[in-house]
């Protein structure tokens, strides 16, 4: 299990590095897909196979592909252009400080101990029961949010019906009729 975790962690970190450093945005999206597969592997080693499958289905199959569509529809004129060195150094400094602070917190924290649990408590069956039982409200709210997001996305990207009232000659109505 430890070897699986190490492989998944390396894959996710390599993909994330690719996603963050590639100047070409298309390569960055592929890097994100690799990172998400690695994260799904990490989920699998953390005893959550259902979440891992959902991660691959929704993230890699849905979000990454939608991003590819967006990249291709908004073709940037010079995709190879890099950000300025100063900007990247500043961002690396902030992110590095954040990492060091977080690592110090993790190494000094006392997390305590958990409960002893039966094997059934981990199972997919329990997740399904809770999703439609205890947490039914979250589940239903999420579906409504997703529906609204899809409708909203369509409304946002929809091309407005062009009504060139002032550019069309006045007698065009009679010609059309």
């Amino acid at each position, binding site marked *: 299990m430890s070897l699986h*975790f190490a492989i998944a962690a390396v894959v996710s970190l390599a993909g994330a590095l690719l*996603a963050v450093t590639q100047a070409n945005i298309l390569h960055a999206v592929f890097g994100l897909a690799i990172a998400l597969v690695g994260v799904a592997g990490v989920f699998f080693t953390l005893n959550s196979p259902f979440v891992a499958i959902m991660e691959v289905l929704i993230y890699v199959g849905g979000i990454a592909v939608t991003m590819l569509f967006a990249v291709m529809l908004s073709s*940037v004129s010079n995709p190879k252009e890099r950000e300025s060195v100063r900007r990247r150094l500043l961002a690396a400094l*902030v992110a590095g400080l954040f990492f060091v602070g977080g690592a110090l917190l993790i190494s000094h924290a006392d997390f305590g101990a958990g409960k002893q649990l039966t094997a059934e408590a981990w199972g997919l069956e329990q997740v399904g029961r809770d999703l439609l039982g205890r947490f039914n409200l979250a589940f239903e709210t999420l579906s409504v949010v997703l529906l609204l997001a899809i409708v909203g996305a369509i409304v946002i990207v929809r091309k407005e019906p062009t009504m060139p009232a002032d550019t069309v000659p006045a007698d065009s109505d009679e010609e059309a009729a």
Partner: protein
Amino acid sequence: MTLEGTLLLGLMLFSLGLYAVLARRNLIAILIGIELMLNAANINFLAFNYFIPTDPAVAQIIVLVVIGLAAAEAAIALAIILKLYRQRSSVDVDAMQLLKSTGAETDDE
């Protein structure tokens, strides 16, 4: 494979996402950074759930909800990016300064 190691992996992913959000100019690259940060948070949820469990199903459901919200967020964000690209022919955040006060009168875009 320990709790600290898993949290460290989440921290690394979050830092990389933070770097992407701060350093990149392309809006889609910034969105990629945000997705990385959300995944780092998901790893932390499941790590705590695995190593110090109290109610194993809860963290999995939290992560499922976060994944769903990320999907909704990505859909809306990409729609806004496409709309911006159509109107301004650019997905560069430095070009998005329509509300900036200085030189608003002589906007040459």
